[in-house]
């Protein structure tokens, strides 16, 4: 029988129902989703891919621990977000880069971009992309020479100076005028077939090459409800439509397929643009965000001085997130039409 006399009514503030999701479980899902691409990178470029990822992950965790130790803040190393940053940064770097170089990128990503702006959830751009941008601006030579996976693998230890490098597909798709682009695009089609491109038997950043496995990872994330489909679909769709409508060589379909599977589009769309802290909250906002990323990517690839625009396009759109959130804020339930103007004006 219930002891009514001593029964206490406990009133607490919401939330009353808690899900089992934690930052840690979400990050673990992201790590799982990236594993196929990592395994393929080892197969494609050699064991150094795994070593580079391990160094980068260890570096990110160390810098996060170091900063929080120095600032006497509670440690968030075990929430695995720094592991994801470390993996993503190594994924967007060429496999033969020296280990000290990726540690500089790690330090910039974790200490400057993430922790100094307030830690997890408060960074204003994607830390891994910011780390890559700094490395690219600082060590342009190393960051733009790509191991040719068909010829040789990168050595896990020691020097990689005698390694054979090759241009990435995107380099073939760029040129000073239409005739030269057409010629190099024909050359590209001779070197790599569409299925090579899709499976990832091409040169490029470590984790970006295999479109197939990145899509598998992305679908896993959508299935686990870690990310929404809006951002990646809008992003990839925009690039597909623009490259199909305005091919610079070959037929529209050919140009579109090579544009989609070359470079870091799949990695960026599924793993970078969907970062919670730097993408819009609402689904409508995520559509706008994805379309913006797509437009900037194509513009940079067509008219910019770099071959690849995914990194910068996502970073540029990261800066627009506050604005997008402001204009895609849903109207509160029960708001009458005449109040809407007032509410949105605020």
């Amino acid at each position, binding site marked *: 029988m219930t002891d009514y006399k001593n029964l206490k009514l406990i009133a607490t503030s919401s939330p009353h129902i808690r899900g089992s999701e934690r930052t840690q479980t979400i990050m673990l899902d992201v790590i799982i989703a990236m594993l196929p691409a990592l395994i393929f990178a080892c197969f494609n470029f050699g064991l150094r891919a795994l070593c580079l990822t391990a160094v980068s992950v260890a570096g990110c965790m160390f810098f996060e621990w170091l900063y929080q130790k120095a600032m006497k803040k509670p440690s968030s190393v075990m929430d695995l977000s720094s592991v994801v940053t470390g993996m993503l940064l190594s994924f967007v770097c060429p496999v033969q880069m020296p280990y000290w170089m990726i540690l*500089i990128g790690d330090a910039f990503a974790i200490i*400057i971009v993430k922790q*100094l702006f307030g830690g997890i959830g408060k960074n204003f751009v994607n830390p891994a992309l910011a780390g890559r941008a*700094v490395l690219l*601006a*600082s*060590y*342009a030579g190393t960051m733009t020479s790509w191991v040719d996976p068909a010829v040789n693998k990168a050595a896990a230890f020691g020097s990689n100076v005698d390694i054979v490098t090759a241009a990435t597909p995107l380099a073939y798709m760029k040129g000073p005028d239409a005739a030269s682009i057409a010629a190099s695009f024909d050359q590209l089609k001779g070197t790599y077939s569409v299925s090579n491109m899709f499976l990832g038997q091409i040169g490029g950043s470590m984790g970006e090459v295999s479109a197939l496995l990145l899509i598998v990872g992305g679908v896993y994330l959508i299935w686990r409800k870690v990310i929404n489909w809006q951002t990646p679909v809008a992003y990839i769709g925009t690039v597909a439509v623009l490259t199909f409508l305005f091919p610079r060589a070959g037929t529209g379909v050919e140009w579109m397929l090579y544009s989609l599977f070359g470079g870091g589009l799949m990695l960026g769309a599924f793993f970078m643009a969907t970062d919670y802290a730097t993408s819009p909250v609402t689904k409508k906002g995520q559509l706008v965000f994805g379309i913006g990323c797509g437009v900037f990517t194509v513009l940079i690839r067509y008219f910019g001085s770099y071959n690849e625009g995914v990194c910068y396009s996502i970073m540029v759109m990261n800066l627009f997130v506050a604005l997008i959130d402001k204009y895609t804020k849903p109207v509160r339930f029960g708001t009458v039409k005449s109040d809407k103007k007032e509410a949105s004006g605020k």
Partner: protein
Amino acid sequence: MNIGRQLKEGLITQNPVLVQMLGLCSTMAITTSIMNGLGMGVSVLIILTASNVVISAIRKIVPDKIRIAMFIVVIAGFVTCVDLLLQAFVPAIAESLGVFIPLIVVNCIILGRAESFSYKNGVAGSFFDGIFQGLGYTLVLLAMCFIRELLGAGTLAGFRIIPEQFPIGVLTLPVGGFLVLGFLIAAMQWALSKSKEGK
């Protein structure tokens, strides 16, 4: 006039760059090497002190309505002197500073101190204000140069400290200037708020 307080204001609590946020353009543009920073800082210090003294001396006879024009004329006179002197005696620094020496004419620090300090205060006070504010500017420039040259180019005043392949080149680019200045301002504000809390 309290010289000690003026010194503290110029270097810390009213630092022209980190607190008043004046003269940011030249601060970001020329701080790629220690020698540049030293040349620019000393030039501004001399021009600021001289123009402060002259403006303070003539403040009673300058009509209020045309005071800005008068300030500019005085400042431009001293800038021309310094520009020609630099070209004559240290042509290397004059060349690497380029257009930023003539641009001191419109540097906000000098016009700002003329308007807010020397137009209202005596000659002696204005003299020390020029020296201390100039010192504050120079110190910030040197701090930025030190960080950007050491980490970005791996050298200090031209001597190689870090082997050529390691330096983080992005720091010598304009974006590095924005980054370093931003972090210096943040550190300064953090330190100021800490010292306020301590009181």
